[in-house]
């Protein structure tokens, strides 16, 4: 009996390994492909011109990505400024302050937000948010602000559900201990529960950030897409992802390669942000 189960395990281990390798292989192939297509043109026209050039005129061989880099970073920052406080506050309310029945009802509803296609978010933004900004705050309405708000809402379900899970994972004995020491509920949340849940909270924010920087369709619809450095929160903006999606259909030759170069920049930015956020999470929870 014993000897029979051994080769079975080995077989399962082997097939699981192959499945795992498939995912990694796909990642490797994508990475190699993007770099192989995008890197040569970056080197040809100079890395500096790509990263810091302010003019994007593909027909005149001018491939400055700075407006798009700034655009992506701005709308992501804006989305986090809106999504993180709202998301954390909701998660804290649903785990620590609401009745269990309410949170059992609300959590799936919030997660439903994640299932709405991004084009629908973009459409709603275009119909309601953009005119609202144009009429009340000025500018064309299609703006950094509009994109930030839409993205801020889109990352809520990610941030909320991961935060809820990590706050629930904090042992009740910590809460009890803190309350027995004369802390109020809010003091307990602030001084004990949130610090204990910190690495999970940061992970949720990283995932939300990844979603915000990678989102394309909704952003194209509300951001205005002018390839210029935005002068204010109310100015239109183009992100790296929008740049690729908007021009891919008709680009050819070096223009097409420049769009792959845009992909390379996006790829590297996401890597750097992930790395920094992971570092922050590890440093803080390692104490």
């Amino acid at each position, binding site marked *: 009996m014993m000897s029979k189960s051994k080769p079975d395990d080995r077989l399962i281990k082997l097939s699981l390994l192959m499945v795992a390798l498939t995912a990694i292989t796909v990642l490797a192939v994508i990475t190699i492909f993007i770099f192989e297509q995008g890197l040569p043109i970056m080197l040809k026209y100079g890395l500096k011109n790509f990263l810091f050039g302010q003019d994007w005129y593909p027909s005149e061989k001018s491939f400055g990505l700075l407006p798009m880099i700034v655009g992506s970073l701005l709308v992501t920052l804006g989305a986090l400024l809106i999504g993180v406080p709202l998301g954390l506050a909701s998660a804290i309310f649903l785990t620590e302050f609401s009745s269990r029945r309410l949170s059992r009802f609300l959590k799936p509803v919030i997660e439903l937000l994640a299932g709405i296609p991004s084009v629908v978010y973009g459409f709603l933004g275009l119909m309601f948010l953009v005119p609202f900004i144009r009429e009340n705050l000025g500018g064309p309405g299609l703006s950094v602000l509009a994109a930030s708000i839409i993205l801020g809402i889109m990352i809520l379900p990610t941030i909320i559900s991961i935060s809820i899970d990590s706050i629930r994972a904090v042992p009740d004995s*910590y809460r009890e201990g803190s309350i027995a020491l*004369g802390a109020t509920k809010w003091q307990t949340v602030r001084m004990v529960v949130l610090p204990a849940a910190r690495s999970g909270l940061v992970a949720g924010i990283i995932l939300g950030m990844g979603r915000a920087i990678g989102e394309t369709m909704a952003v194209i619809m509300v951001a205005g897409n002018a390839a210029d450095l935005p002068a204010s929160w109310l100015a239109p903006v183009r992100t790296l992802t929008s740049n690729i999606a908007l021009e891919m259909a008709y680009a050819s030759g070096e223009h097409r390669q420049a769009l792959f170069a845009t992909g390379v920049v996006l790829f590297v930015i996401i890597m750097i942000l992930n790395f920094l956020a992971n570092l922050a999470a590890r440093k803080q929870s390692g*104490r």
Partner: protein
Amino acid sequence: MKDIAIQVINFSHFYGQQPSLKNLNLDIYRKEILGIIGPARSGKSTFLTCLNRLNDLVPGSRVSGKILVDGLDIYQPEVEVAALRRRLGMVFATPVPLPMSIYDNIAFGPRLQGQTDRQELDHLVEDCLEKAGLWAEVKDRLKTSALKLSGGQQQRLCLARVLALKPEYILLDEPTSGLDPISTMKIEDTLLLLKKDYTIVLVTNNTKQAARVADRTAFFLMGELVEVNETDIIFTRPSDKRTENYIEGKFG
């Protein structure tokens, strides 16, 4: 006459419809150690959480009757619960240091009350660790995580943390149930020292522990107080047959 610190009058406690404490009447004297013994599920831990209203946290928890702490009826709505819990500090069965440094664990309570003076805090931390018999072992690593201490050290840290609240009462819920004999002995020695300044209620699974440290001992069974008396009387000539059976280990 003994100075009565806590008076429990016709007190009952329920989880939902289920009574967990039935009509208790008990006085706790100032600066004594009251031991509470009884088998599992006899209500002794519940009784402890009723004294500092930690039972408020349990959904469906309900009480009737009165508990007077220094004459104050603690179940009156205007009672400030956080302040009450500082006066009746509690140590749990499983030592649960908060996930922060040794120093911060002890400074937690005082900081909640707005104490920020570094020197005062330093002084208090040393003083409380000293009283809990832990200072010598941790004085060189106050900034390291409290979670790295051994179980016995963690429990003494929890005791020190309670002392930092400057409580009048210390409630201990089977504080040595998970500890080795040497750590247990250290905690018991500490309790005997603390008795001159504090009123202590010690719930314990270990009847011998009650015999060693308690001035008086109460025997709980199925949510009822069977009897309470001087510890040597309880252990040598209890008035109730059930107490005798429990102490002799015939059930439990």
